[in-house]
């Protein structure tokens, strides 16, 4: 059974978080993500959860890391300027393998830019914004329904892989209201349990993910951003140990690249192939619907990081990939690394979605 609602994307995100058991929200309101915090502030305490408005986004990120170590399913929501402030602690979360969900409803940047307008300019920052080598997961919703479903998925992936997961939305999807079907229950995947007597950062399984030693459950755990050994103790001058640790942090995500790839493909034999994620997906869908042209393919990404590169190879006849993004080609550049045919970047800055006419012009070679 499902029920129908007419919700804003940001509301759907908050409701998805509540459905999958989020019980801690620490954040600092910022347009265009504020409705996520507002909704959580109203709903979370009634479900026995905790909502804290922190003094800034540095503290917000710190708060969800702390909450996560107590076993909470923790999230924050922000936009570009706040996302920049969170970067330091996002690296800490990656290094300490702390499950957490960060929602970024993207607006125009750089800096404070365009608070009320749409953009996708933080896609590379999501992947590489904190210093050092690490890997994260980023999901991109294109509908209000996906704001709900991918938030649920983000929590499950965060717990499963012990990693920060980003819901990289945009103002278009965050603020639009549309029909959404709410399921009675959602899938919940928890953390791998900790086996007593083993060092807390030892990963013995092939998935390279250690069990989670929740604070307050009867043992001491040392958690540090310094390079640490399997016991969690700082060990910052051992080259081999550092290499092994960082390689494991990256490999546990990279090895699961195919397992977590979430995308749709249309017209696999096409020579011209659109690739899109987030808001621009809607424009591509309109063009596909209007033209009904078997020679135009579409790869619709929900997982953007780790990038599902094998999806590109499915379009065996592809002569050109067309990539509409609300940035100057951040993911187009990633696609270029994986294909031999030309990648046509269709950037749009200014805060508005690509129009169908603009994509048709690009398809026909006029832009």
């Amino acid at each position: 059974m499902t029920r129908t609602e007419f919700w804003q994307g940001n509301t759907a995100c908050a409701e998805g978080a509540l459905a999958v058991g989020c019980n801690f929200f620490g954040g600092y309101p910022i347009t265009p993500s504020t409705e996520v915090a507002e909704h959580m502030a109203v709903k979370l305490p009634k479900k026995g959860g905790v909502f804290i408005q922190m003094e800034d986004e540095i503290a917000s990120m710190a708060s969800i890391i702390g909450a996560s170590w107590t076993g909470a399913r923790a999230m924050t929501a922000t936009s570009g300027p706040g996302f920049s402030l969170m970067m330091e602690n996002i690296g800490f979360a990656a290094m300490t393998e702390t499950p957490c969900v960060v929602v970024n409803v993207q607006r125009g940047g750089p800096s404070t830019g365009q608070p009320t307008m749409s953009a996708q300019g933080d896609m590379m920052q999501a992947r590489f914004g904190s210093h050092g080598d690490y890997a994260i997961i980023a999901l991109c919703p294109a509908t209000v329904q996906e704001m709900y479903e991918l938030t649920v998925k983000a929590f499950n992936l965060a717990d499963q892989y012990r990693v920060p997961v980003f819901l990289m939305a945009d103002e278009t999807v965050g603020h639009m209201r549309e029909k959404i079907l709410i399921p009675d229950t959602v899938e919940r995947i928890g953390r791998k349990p900790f086996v007593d007597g083993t060092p807390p950062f030892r990963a013995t399984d092939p998935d390279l993910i250690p069990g989670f030693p929740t604070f307050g459950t009867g043992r001491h755990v040392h958690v540090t951003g310094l390079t640490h050994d399997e016991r969690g103790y700082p060990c910052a001058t051992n080259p081999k140990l550092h290499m092994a640790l960082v390689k494991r942090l990256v490999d546990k995500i990279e090895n699961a690249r195919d397992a977590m790839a979430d995308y749709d493909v249309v017209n696999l034999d096409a020579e011209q192939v659109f690739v899109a994620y987030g808001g621009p997906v809607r424009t591509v869908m309109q063009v596909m619907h209007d033209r009904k042209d078997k020679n135009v393919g579409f790869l619709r990404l929900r997982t953007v990081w780790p990038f599902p590169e094998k999806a590109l190879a499915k379009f065996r006849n592809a002569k050109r990939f067309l990539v509409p993004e609300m940035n100057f080609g951040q993911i187009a550049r990633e696609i270029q690394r994986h294909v031999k045919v030309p990648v046509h970047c269709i950037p749009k800055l200014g805060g508005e979605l690509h129009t169908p006419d603009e994509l048709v012009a690009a398809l026909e070679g006029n832009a």
Partner: protein
Amino acid sequence: MRNEIRFSGFGGQGIILSAVIIGRAAVMYDSKFAVQTQVYGPEARGGASMSAVIIDDDPILYPKVANPNIYVIMSQEGFEKYGAAAEDPAVMLIDSTLVHSRPKCRCIEVPATREAKQTLKKDIVANIVMLGALVAATHVVSGESLKKAILDSVPKGTEDLNLKAMQLGLQLGKQP
């Protein structure tokens, strides 16, 4: 059947809420598809505000309204920015208390702010008067669905006032 409706006025009139109510009526009570979007600036009050809603029997792909077939305009600045280009066969409902320009397309004049002030003593419900007139003139949603969506959306204690505003609008928007 597809309708694309654009609402414009100044911040504080409830321009965004108007589109939300119509979209909600379509989805929740008329079993249709709807997408509501908006354009707004950092101001809390004043400034031209615009919101739009698409109502369709089929799922809506591209969510933005480019060429509305229905306009609801509640301020002069809103008309100039978001309504002046309207052409036949579009129809425009204007709050004739606040908008002195007239479009090239068919125009329905609704003295919503004046009537809200004089008859209901509250000009804050002028947007609901406009919604009543919109539904009477265009039937984009049913009257019953509009009523339910208004009751879902307005603050507690203001239900009677808002329903009176809707009734007033239904009368004002009736086409001969």
